[in-house]
Every structure is written in C-alpha cells, then in structure tokens.
C-alpha cells in the first residue's frame, strides 16, 4: 500500500523478525500468549506468524470483551429489552452474539425490541436525555478500557438526576483473568505458557504496576505492547530475550502510552462508582473470583441489576463449541469440529466467531488458508 510509513515498518519488521530468529534457541519452544483480542487481530491481519521461527508459537488469550461474556448475561440483556420494555443501548459488537433459544440482540431487535447500537457510553446517556419518558439501560461490557467511560456516565447521570437511566454492568478485570490462566495450568489439557504479551489499551488505564505481583508469583515475563504490528514483534523479541536470560519481569514496550501508574483520574472515577464482585462467570473460564465490577451501593439507583431484579442464570455453551478451551489457550480454532463449516462469521455458533478480535473469527478471516496445506 502506498503508505510510506508502512513501507518503512515492513523493513523494520523484517529486521526484528531476523533478530528473533537469531536469539531464539532452536532446542526449545517458546509458547507466548497474547492476552488481548486486539493483538490476536493484529497478528492475523498482518500475517505476523509467517515472520516467526517455527518454535516461537503464539497462543490466543481471553482478552476479547465480547467473547468472554457468558450467554446468561446476554439473555438478561435481551430480557431487559423484551420484558421490561426499556431502550437497551449496546456496543455493536455484542449484537450478533448467540444467546439462548436461537436469539441474539440483533434478532430481538428485528422482532421489535428497542435496542440501539451505540459507539460510546456517552451516546447511551444522550439517548436517555432525549427520551426522558422512557427507561433506558446501557449494556456495559468490556475490560478496563471501557470501564472509565461507564463510570463517567453514571456520575453524569447522578449530576443530571436522571431517574429512568441505569447501567447493566458487566465490566471485567484483566489481571484476574491472567491469574486464572496460570492457575488452570494444572489442568492436564493445559499448554504451559512461557510469557505474555500484555494488553495495550487496558494498560494505559491500569498502568504496568498491576502485573508486578503476577510476575513475582508465577515467574513468567509480561511485556506490555501496543496494537501496531511492529509493537507486537518487538514485544515478542523482548519476551524471547527474557526467557533466554531466565528473567521474569514486567517490561513495557508501549512506553509512548503506558506508564507504571496508569491513568490516575480514570482509576479514581472507577473506584468511586464501582466495587469488586466476589465472583463472576466468564465464558470459557467459568467462575473467576474477584474478576469483575459492580456498581457501589451509593449509586444503586443506576444499577439495572437491582432496578429490574435481574437474576443471573448460567447457560451452557453450544455442545460443539470449543470456545472455553480456546479462551484458555488449550485448543486452537481449527481444533473445533464445526470451525469454518457450521460456524462462520455469517452464522456464528460461539462468541469467538463474532467479534473481529475473537480467535475463531480472526483465524477464519485471515488465516484459514494455512489449514489446507
């Protein structure tokens, strides 16, 4: 593409790839997990796997906000729109996630439910202001990146004394999921992971400090990386070097955006509005202790779970779907029997096939030609 920077990047990338090939010890394997769906997407889209030596393997992690949302939570969101007659505001990504009884938010919308796609939390607040006579609920999902905007609209709603606006909070926490992955290494199906490519946008909010305890406890290196393809290759080189030297440290490749402390202001408003849940059910990971947020009692009037008495009901995934094992890095998309046949981005069976950051969708869209060699 005639995009000068990318030409230059291409050469830099090959330079870094050569450096990885030089330092990687042919006598061993390097199994690296990119935690974030954003990294999964970049790796697939730029064909980075072709630049790595065969013994440096990338394993997709659970950091795709849409993929880890369990069916029960989507069911509750659909019920809000169909049974409580609210305007449900949701990010576009969640619209096509399959829910119970063949439904999805998109299908519920087609059947007449008032579901509106929004691009930001602010849009949801605006819809509430424009429709003062209607009950409006924001279906809040995502990791630490999307949490501060949700906190900000709760505070704003309190200031504006919006009586009919509330938030269905499903925000989850990255470090807790990383801990869970290490704890599940005892599972005989588990792949031992030698190091982590750490989140980009999440880390701009939480900083690099929260990974320090993780590294100390599990002895695996974490390198925080930006979402550009060059960032990813650079971080892989840094991980290989740490592993070779027997080091396990938190390193920051993404210094142009991530500090040790993170974004203090964003953290402060999150702390003001949210508190830790004892436990949260993740798709793929199951119940993970201290891994998600709920709205504090002080703002309970904006908590849709309380307002509409939402009771969480666990719903098993589709029988054939291997999302659970894929999200933990135990299996690859092509290991799923229905990958690319029954399950495609046009007709997703599992959540990993919905979002462009999902491991199955990224592999289907960009990488499936590799399976046929």
């Amino acid at each position, binding site marked *: *593409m*005639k*995009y*000068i920077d*990318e*030409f230059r*990047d*291409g050469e830099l*990338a*090959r330079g870094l*790839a050569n450096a990885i090939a030089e330092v990687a010890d042919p006598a061993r394997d390097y199994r690296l997990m990119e935690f*974030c*769906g*954003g990294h999964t*997407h970049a790796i*697939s*889209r*730029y*064909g*980075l*796997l*072709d*630049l790595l030596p065969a013994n440096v393997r990338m394993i997709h992690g659970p*950091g*795709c*906000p*849409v993929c880890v949302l369990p069916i029960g939570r989507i069911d509750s969101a659909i019920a809000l729109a169909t049974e409580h007659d609210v305007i449900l505001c949701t*990010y*576009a*990504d969640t*619209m*096509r996630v399959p829910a119970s009884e063949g439904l999805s938010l998109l299908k519920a919308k087609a059947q007449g439910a008032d579901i509106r796609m929004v*691009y930001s939390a602010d849009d949801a607040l605006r819809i509430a202001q424009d429709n003062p006579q209607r009950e409006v609920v924001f279906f809040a999902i*995502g*990791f630490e*990146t*999307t949490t501060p905007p949700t906190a900000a609209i709760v505070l704003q709603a309190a200031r504006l004394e919006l009586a009919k606006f509330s938030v269905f909070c499903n925000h989850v926490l990255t470090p807790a999921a990383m801990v869970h992955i290490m704890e599940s290494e005892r599972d005989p199906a588990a792949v031992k992971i030698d190091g982590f490519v750490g989140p980009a*946008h999440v880390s701009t909010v939480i900083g690099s400090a929260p990974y320090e305890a993780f590294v100390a406890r599990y002895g695996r290196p974490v390198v925080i990386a930006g979402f550009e*393809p060059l960032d990813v290759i650079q971080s892989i080189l840094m991980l290989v070097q740490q592993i070779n030297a027997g080091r396990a440290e938190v390193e920051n490749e993404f210094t142009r955006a991530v500090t040790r402390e993170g974004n203090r202001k964003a953290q402060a408003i999150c702390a003001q509005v949210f508190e830790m849940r004892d436990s949260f059910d993740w798709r793929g990971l199951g119940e993970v202790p201290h891994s998600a947020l709920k709205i504090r009692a002080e703002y309970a009037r904006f908590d849709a779970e309380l307002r509409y008495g939402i009771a969480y009901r666990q719903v098993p995934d589709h029988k054939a779907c291997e999302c659970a094992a894929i999200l933990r890095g135990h299996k690859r998309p092509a290991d799923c029997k229905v990958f690319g046949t029954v399950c*495609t*981005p*046009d007709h997703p069976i599992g959540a990993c096939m919905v*979002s*462009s*950051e999902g491991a199955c969708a990224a592999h*289907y*869209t*960009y*990488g*499936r*030609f590799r399976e*046929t060699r």
Partner: protein
Amino acid sequence: MTTYTRPIDFKRGRVDMSHGSGGRAMAQLIDELFVRHFANDLLAEQGDGACFALPTGAGRMVMATDSHVVSPLFFPGGDIGALAVHGTVNDVAMMGARPLYLSASFILEEGYPLADLLRIVKSMAQAAREVGVAIVTGDTKVVEAGKGDGVFITTTGIGLVPQGVALNAGRIAVGDRILVSGMLGDHGVAIMSHRENLTFETTIQSDTAALHGLVATMLDAVPDLHVLRDPTRGGLATVLNEFAKASGHGMLIHEKAIPVRSEVAAACELLGLDPLYVANEGKLVAFCAGQDAETLLDVMRAHPLGRDAAIIGEVIADEHAFVQMRTAFGGRRMVDWLNGEQLPRIC
C-alpha cells in the same frame, strides 16, 4: 391558439404528487426538465420507448442496469446524476462493449426542491454528453414525503461488443496478472467522510468517471484481455473473491503494490475500514495473460484515467480458490469476503 402555461419554478418549486400523476404537471416536468436537458431526437419523440437501428454488421450487444441510492446526493467530486451515468456506462464497458444508449428512471420524493433536481439532471446531461451516449427514454414516479430519500435513479444501458472481444471470468487462468487502474477507495471515503463530517488535510474527492475510453484503448493494445470488472460496492476484495469463485483459482496480491492515497489510508484507519473493501466509481480491475501484463500496464498509464495503474498480483493454483495477500510486513493472510457489516471494534 396555444394556451399559456406558466413555466415550472425551478428556483423555489418542489416536487409534488402531481409530478408523478401522469397528468399535465408530469408532462410539463418531462418537457421542461428531461427533454430539454437530455436533448436528443429519440427522447424528443416521447414514445413509450425509443426505437433505433443498429449499425450495420453489429455483432453482439450488452445490456446492463444499475440503481443509484447514494446519500448524500451531492458529494465531493460528484453527485447522483453523474454517478447514475458513469455507473451504468461502466457496467456496459466492463463487458468490453462500446456504450450506445441509456434509459433513466427517476423516483422522486414529494417535497424535494426542484432546484436540486435541476442540478442533478444537468449534471447527468453533461456526463452523458461527455461519454457520447444519449439518454433516450425514461420514467418518472413520485412517492410521498418520507417514503424516499430525495431522488433515486435507475439507469439501463446498451452497448455493442466489437468483433473478437470475449471478456468473461471463465478465461481466467493460473499465471494471469491482476491489474488495477488507479488509487483505490476514493469514492467510498469521500462519501463517508462527508457523511461523518470528517475533514482531512485535503478533501478526498470521489473518483466517479466513465471508463469506456480506457477500456477501448486497453482492448486495442491487448485484444486477448481475459476479464474486467469495476470494483464498486464491496471494493477490490469483493471483485477478487467473485473471480476466484467463478474461475476456481486462487489469487495472490501484494499489499505494497496496491495503490491507495495516504489520505484515504488515514481516513480508513480512523473510520475502522479496510480500503480493499471500500467502493470505487472510476476504477477497474483487469486480468490478462502474464506476457501481456507490461503492454497493458503501459497503455493504461498513458491514459488519463489509468495514470496510477499497477500490477497488483497474480492468479495461482489453489483448489480452495482463496484470495491471499502478502502484507507489507512480509507475512501472508487471507482477503476474505466481507461478512455482515464492518462493525467498529470497541477495545
């Protein structure tokens, strides 16, 4: 004695239901707007259709149709009128044909300003003159306010295929080269940045243009051209996947060779789009035998509408008929059919 009829007020007037009723108001609109500006003898006859003779020795004909529903109706670099002419002329030209005549069907929304309609019709007339085709028949309907989007235009075109020209996807063979005629993504990005009210350092203009002239010079130089298509909705990626499916072969393209303006690349980045899937209205994709590729490239580059032409890839043997791309980073990935809408990412 003829009675005086007050001319239509094209400054302040608006479309009303009577303009589609078949009565006097409609006849007046046809006379004062369409017949006057599209000015040609066949249309002036105002029959139910146009009746014309074919040039002697004419071989095969091509017929193509296209409906235009663009929003906004006026955009940087063009408007729905020019687009309605270029779109159908290009469909005819992609079959290797020389375009002869067009028809134009208008669906107008009640209340639409006649001044804007006049602008659209003049632009259409000018585009048709430049192309050298006559708009010889048409139709006008009016829908109630709220049931249309201002103006919808459907055009149908017919053209003649010169002897010896046979363009079709079945002729694509392993080893064929793939060429594009210029910078990709201009039209789609011009429309979207206008819609989203985005401004970049320079305004990106739609590339809307009629390609029959370029096609004629290409066929002169390389009569054995295998197939052509204009990458409109769905962009280059969609055309390549259609051809891969139709021919049963794979394709390998090279990201570095694909011409995209840096402003368009930057805008796509911002809008979360991939330029390979963005619409063009004045570009074509060509397949020819390997040994003809350089000749074809030279004549394309010598034509004003092909200045930035490039060879972007080749046809490869692949039983799965996948389209692959070597990325600027040196890796490979698939360039798949677009699935659903391109959804913005939230992380």
